[in-house]
């Protein structure tokens, strides 16, 4: 799979196949309590400690909708530039499983809370629009644990009833890279909105991947297979790659593709049939008679709209206009809300004489490298935005050189020390006094007369030797620009 080229085609002899991908993303709504009960949703609690009578489906218990979750879903819909449906209906999806206490999941089938919308992807060769089919609210199930007891399956109902948003894309994705970009963008939008933390390790974001293939330039969609519950972008890409090739191989052998649900085996890197269309559950959806249709007013939606923060696409535009950063840089800076916040704070603290180029470079290369190494989020950065801004200003006003700045940056990491203080304590201030530098250079030329003569006779690459000597003697503090100028004059 090519990283640079947006085209992802599978070739077999004379046939060229295109891959068509659609995603059903399950995003856990950020909310303190569950969709229909007041139990906590906190991750990592002891099994079955966050379960109400409603979550465990005791006789006579009734669901009551959590208004906050409804607001979160609508906000997400607004973030997806989508139609908000003023009337939506909760349905029961009926099936038996040990971790589904009610024997049905409350979901939205015919009338979802959010309709069609759009997500814009920033791909290397330009933008791409991916259509959103719908977003609906539903309950999560509990968790079956099969490997703790040799005889029994154990059930943890902490997740039972937690609010999920199922976000269904149109079959608009064509490459594993687009899938990655789509998931990241969706995650970014929801994190900006505070509607889903997007934490894939904790299962806050999971996806079912629909894959089909067709001959390039064909207009009709091929038979799709659904790959269930893939919980990392990397696995999604691997699963798509495997599945698309499997389907192409079948077609090349003259066989047809069965519409089925498949599982991705991360160890063997392959997808396996889980159940065929014939074996598919008949979920017997019908409107939940315990809940009235969900109706929201125009004012309710407008109020939520007015609370929507600046989202990545708008922020990117503003960064380009206001800060004159490149589109590429802006994309990186806005991709995560915390990065954008950090960057904006650095910009603010740099003051009037700000240097955007330096700010972008220091954040995206030096700081990112450190965060990566230490496996930290930018919100937990060991260097605060204020101190990084100070460091950049010290470079900008010539107090320190870029090289010294890197040394100071290392020292700042200890306890987020003020770079100004470090400069003073360690005496790292750049020597920019021309007289002092002239004296320094005179001494170096004197100590290396033979080399100076060689240089004059045409051995020009010795210039670097003299610069090196000047830096060495000054302990790296000599202003390199001035050294250059003076050396040229003196030699």
């Amino acid at each position: 799979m090519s990283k640079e080229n947006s085209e992802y085609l599978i070739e077999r002899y004379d046939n060229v196949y295109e891959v068509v991908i659609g995603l059903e993303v399950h995003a856990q709504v950020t909310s303190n309590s569950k969709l229909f009960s007041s139990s906590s949703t906190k991750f990592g609690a002891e099994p079955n400690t966050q379960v109400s009578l409603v979550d465990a489906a005791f006789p006579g218990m009734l669901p009551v909708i959590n208004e906050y979750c409804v607001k979160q879903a609508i906000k997400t819909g607004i973030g997806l530039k989508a139609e908000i449906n003023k009337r939506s209906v909760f349905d029961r999806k009926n099936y038996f499983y040990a971790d589904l206490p009610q024997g049905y999941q409350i979901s939205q089938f015919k009338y979802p809370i959010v309709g069609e919308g759009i997500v814009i992807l920033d791909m290397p060769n330009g933008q791409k629009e991916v259509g959103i089919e719908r977003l609906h609210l539903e309950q999560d199930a509990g968790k079956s644990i099969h490997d703790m007891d040799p005889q029994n399956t154990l059930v943890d109902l902490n997740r039972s009833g937690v609010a999920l948003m199922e976000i269904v894309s149109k079959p608009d994705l064509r490459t594993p890279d687009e899938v990655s970009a789509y998931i990241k963008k969706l995650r970014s939008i929801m994190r900006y909105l505070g509607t889903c933390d997007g934490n894939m390790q904790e299962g806050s974001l999971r996806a079912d991947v629909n894959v089909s293939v067709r001959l390039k330039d064909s207009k009709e969609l091929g038979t799709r297979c659904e790959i269930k519950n893939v919980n990392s972008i990397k696995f999604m890409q691997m699963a798509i790659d495997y599945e698309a090739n499997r389907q192409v191989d079948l077609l090349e052998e003259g066989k047809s593709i069965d519409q089925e649900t498949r599982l991705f085996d991360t160890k063997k890197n392959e997808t396996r049939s889980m159940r065929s269309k014939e074996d598919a559950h008949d979920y017997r959806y019908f409107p939940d008679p315990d809940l009235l249709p969900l109706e929201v007013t125009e004012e309710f939606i407008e109020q939520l709209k007015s609370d929507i923060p600046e989202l990545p696409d708008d922020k990117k535009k503003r960064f380009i206009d206001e800060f004159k950063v490149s589109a590429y840089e802006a994309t990186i800076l806005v991709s995560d809300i915390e990065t954008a916040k950090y960057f904006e704070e650095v910009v603010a603290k740099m003051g009037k004489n700000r240097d955007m180029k330096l700010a972008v470079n220091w954040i995206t290369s030096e700081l990112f490298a450190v965060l990566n190494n230490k496996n930290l989020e930018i919100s937990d950065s060991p260097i605060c935005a204020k101190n990084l801004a100070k460091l950049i200003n010290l470079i900008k006003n010539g107090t320190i050189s870029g090289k010294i700045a890197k040394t100071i940056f290392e020292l700042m990491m200890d306890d987020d020390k003020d770079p100004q203080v470090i400069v003073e304590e360690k005496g790292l201030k750049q020597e920019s006094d021309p007289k002092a530098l002239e004296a320094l250079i005179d001494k170096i030329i004197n100590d290396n007369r033979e080399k100076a003569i060689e240089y004059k006779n045409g051995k020009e690459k010795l210039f670097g030797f003299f610069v090196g000597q000047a830096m060495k003697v000054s302990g790296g503090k000599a202003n390199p620009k001035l050294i250059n100028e003076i050396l040229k004059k003196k030699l």
Partner: protein
Amino acid sequence: MSDITSQTLTSLVKNIKEKKLSSEEVTKAFVDRSEKSKELNSYITEDFSNAIDKSKKFDEKPNLDLKLPGIPIAVKDLFCTKDIRTTAGSKILENFVPTYESTVTQNIWNEGAILLGKLNCDEFAMGSSNETSFYGNVQNPIDKGLVPGGSSGGSAAAVSGQLTPITIGTDTGGSIRQPASFTGTVGLKPTYGSCSRYGIVAFASSLDQAGPMSQNVEDCALLQEVISTYDNKDSTSIDFKRGQYSKELTKDIKGKKIGIPKEYRVEGMPKEIEELWKKGIEYAKDCGAEIIDISLPNTSYALPTYYIVAPAEASSNLARYDGVKYGFRAKGENLIDMYEKTRSEGFGSEVQRRIMIGTYVLSSGYYDAYYLKAQKVRKLIKNDFDEVYKKVDAILTPSTPSSAFKIGEKKNDPVSMYLNDIFTVPVNLAGLPAISIPAGLDSAGYPLGLQIIGKAFQEQEILNLAYAMEDKINFKNKITDWWIK
């Protein structure tokens, strides 16, 4: 003591308030009579010694401002009662003890009532004769070998047989009104959304409604006043202005317009019922009401509609009884095997029949033809009522197409059993209030009831009509105590 148990709720309350009777005396009287009435099989779970303890406690510090001061009450075993076993008449909940209280029962305890025990009913309220209960038949106090009706059969028998001064039943398709009619008692099915469903074992959520069952209309009004509250734990509970039903009760119904729907003259209806209805019309006229012939054209579709909607909801509501979390569990080779054995052994045949019907009508390929169509017809039935209520204040019909039948007579004929509900189900489908009052006896001396159907939220109106007619009818239930040795 027997004169205590024959008193109405209203007079017991009066006597306790005037300190002519203590709660303990009253409670012991009902416990004593209940003990002697085992043959009726009204109770599934008795809580007699606790009841007496509670009555003593009440008497130590009696709060006589309450509406049900120290009154012992047995309730249908479909209401979850904290720390008291709640079975819904099913084996699958044989050992189920809730840690919570239904809103409706909590409301009566808050007004000073004391739990006597849990009353027998058809399994998950599915039945019209109390014969589907895992805990056995209930005998109708009217005569040996007679069904008390269902599903609130134990409740009706307990009120009629004076084992409890009053009770609460539930009505999904007639389960309060039909047994009231069969036992010569009064039963009210309130407007959907009037009484909270929180803590009531669900049968069909869009139809289920709790309501009072009593010896007379006045008692019925008082209990309705206590149990009907808005409850934010039930999303279908409706926040409307509830009346002080017992205080506002009046026999003055002059000029009220009462509709007589021609579609309720069903084929094969016994002459006695026809005559009872005619008599009812005369009584209403005597009270000063105006009689108007009306038409509810979609009535004949109500029963088939009901037997699609109710099983559909039930099939889903009962999915939670799977042996995993609580209740009965059979041993199985694996999860599916455990489910199958648990549900085959835990549910009786009528419940299984309705789960199968419900599963069928919701399954893909049949959904549109059955469930969706039934929902559309349901709307038409509701429209019928809306239309006639532009012209009339209430509707008068028989409560049932026959009097109580013999135990075993219809047990193996589900369709004939379902026909019992023909006059009561349209009311549930439309979400309306309706009351059944005893209005006469058939040739065998078995009670027959008349049903008054009201406009939504107009419980007061039908209580008033029933109150006025009750006075004219002057019905006396013939209780011979045949079961007491």
